[in-house]
């Protein structure tokens, strides 16, 4: 098996540890991982802001980079959703039949928990993480992809992990990409409620499958000196009793 890792532009520069965790995890499960160097960004920020023309070169870049991969794995529900649902809209808009075809023929894309549970058929990935954790189901993984309780099943199988219930878990955190900048007051009002629920959960770590949402919620929690850190689910699932070769447990885990 050889899967292409779509690390996402955000993780690439802000959270490389998440990408490294995916590599560690997949290798541990016997999956051969490649990182197509031509990748940049899936184009979601442009599409969701209404800049479809601007997204065309990004979609072109994406399909070229991942051509030939057996599957694409991405540690982000919203980027997976963008590739799965928006690329064809952008391709149609470009008026280039070659791009439309290339998008149709592009390898299947899986959000990390989908790939683990549906393709590899594993729930217990051999992880160890002795902390109190709560899980925020991000909107695009929950409603656009329909990952359901796959991430929770994965977390429940982690040794040492105590899962705390997050009140109003399914409610949006208020990130919403450029929404957070175009409607900053509403975004923060939503985020404030999410942060309150996270604090109420009694968890020490907030876990999600999208670092974009975690940047928002984690940024609020950090500003509040809340004493809760945020982590991508890949990093929790990559953790074991012996510190992994790729992980640096002393730092870089907070958003």
């Amino acid at each position, binding site marked *: 098996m050889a899967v292409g890792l779509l*690390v996402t*532009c955000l993780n*690439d*520069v*802000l959270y490389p540890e998440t990408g*490294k965790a995916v*590599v*560690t995890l997949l290798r541990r499960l016997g999956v051969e*991982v*490649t*990182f197509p*160097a*031509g990748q*940049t960004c899936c184009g979601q*920020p*442009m599409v969701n*802001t*209404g*800049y*479809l023309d*601007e*997204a065309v*070169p*990004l979609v072109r*870049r994406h399909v070229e980079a991942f051509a030939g991969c057996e599957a694409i794995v991405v540690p982000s529900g919203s980027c997976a959703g963008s590739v799965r649902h*928006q690329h064809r809209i952008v391709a149609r808009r470009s008026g280039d039949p070659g791009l439309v075809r290339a998008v149709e023929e592009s390898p299947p894309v899986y959000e990390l928990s989908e790939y683990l549970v549906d393709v590899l058929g594993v729930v217990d990935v051999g992880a160890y993480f002795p902390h109190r954790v709560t899980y925020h189901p991000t*909107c*695009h993984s*929950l*409603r*656009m992809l329909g990952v359901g309780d796959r991430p929770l099943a994965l977390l429940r199988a982690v040794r040492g992990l105590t899962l705390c219930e997050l009140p109003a878990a399914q409610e949006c955190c*208020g990130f*919403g990409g450029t*929404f*957070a*900048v175009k*409607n*900053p*007051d*509403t*975004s*923060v*009002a*939503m985020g404030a409620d999410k942060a309150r629920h996270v604090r109420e959960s009694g968890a020490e770590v907030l876990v999600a499958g999208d670092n974009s949402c975690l*940047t*928002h919620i*984690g*940024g*609020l929690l*950090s500003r509040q000196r809340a*004493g809760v*850190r*945020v982590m991508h689910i890949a990093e929790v699932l990559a953790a074991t009793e012996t510190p992994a*070769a790729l992980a640096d447990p*002393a*730092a*870089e*885990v*907070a*958003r």
Partner: protein
Amino acid sequence: MSRTFLGTPAFPEAARSALANTQLRRNLAHATSTIRAKRAAVVGEVAEWERLRRAGAALKDRTLRHLDTYLQQLEESLTRAGATVHWARDAAEANRIVVDVARRHGTDEVVKVKSMVTAEIGLNDALAAAGITAWETDLAELIVQLGDDLPSHILVPAIHRNRSEVREIFLREMGRYGRPAPADLSDVPAELAAAARAHLREKFLRSRVAVSGANFAVAETGTLAVVESEGNGRMCLTLPEVLISVVGIEKLVPTWADLEVFLQLLPRSSTGERMNPYTSLWTGVTPGDGPQEVHVVLLDNGRTQVLADEVGRQALRCIRCSACLNVCPVYERTGGHSYGSVYPGPIGAILTPMLRGVGADAQVDSLPYASSLCGACFEVCPVRIDIPEVLVHLRAEVVDSHRGHPSAQNAAMAAAAWTLGDARRTSVAERVACAVGKLLRRTRRRAPGGRATLGALPGPAARWADARDVPIPAPESFRAWWARTDGGRTEQQ
């Protein structure tokens, strides 16, 4: 005594003031969480809910794709049943028709069933200009009318008011327009409802002309349906001699049998009940029972413009249940007035721009952006309107309508597209960011877990950094790490 939405600022600014209104925030959070729980419970009872939703969507698509045929069929069946059919291209024409009918009967007042469409066309103002008073009879509409307020919700226009505010409005205003509220009125909802009953009763019993909308119009039979709870609808539809119903052309369903789908979808989605207390169905004129003169005004007012939009057309499936408002995290916090339209919330954010057209008005153009695209609206919509899809589609229309005009956003997006359109350029940009990160990380405050963060930021970045700590770029990007270590294989332990 009527305010309008004219002059509402663009959504972000309107939302900012609404967010600061603590009473509003509390009222909305309480009301929307109540209705969300009710809806979830009764929808959960229906084993084949998803199949019903798909049937509802398909029936509406069938109607919309053959709307000309069905409208002509409706006109024929209504005429056969003794109703008079009028057609109105826009609000002004519809208002003129209603005013003319009312005038012909020499009345100076009409009673009204709550209807979104008559709010959309500003009928009350048009009637007032003709010296005719329109009495709103739905409890929430009465609260809005007496309070010289604006509606903020499709189903419960006074959702932004709590019981003590309603009590105050009733005590202050009812006496000016008819029977006053009892002097010892409390803020118990049952007492407030009783005050409304007493206040409106004399108006119901004496009015000779009523105005309604319709939830559904059956093309095959000419049957109109009004779905309600209080009985004010039945009063208006039954007691007066003349009934004028203003019906948007998207309200059609093809056959009588098709009502079975919508009469299951609507109450459960709307009030969270298995069935609403009252549904009235009437087909033209029934001799000896109810109004003996029945008018139906078929209204376009921008609907054909929505129909012409192949992606946006699905918005015309809407049966005005308001489930999307009740689950929307943006609506819950900002309330309906922030949307500056009689159609607030997610459905309003797509319907208003399509009815009015994008590219001409900054307030309208701000509406497709009034969403985090969380998708909760699509999940509950009983006719499966993919609101996020239409929002994104309309954002593109807004952007396209402003192409060629220099703006910070256009420049930023062009620069991002240029950088991210090529892996080499992306990699250079990342190296710069990581170098800056390295410089900054020694001196900056740490977030929980140890990550260095930026403090306050200038310019547009302040909108983010005002409330949130910002992580500093990693010292080495994933891309650079992969290249340096051959994907971790040569990394030193």
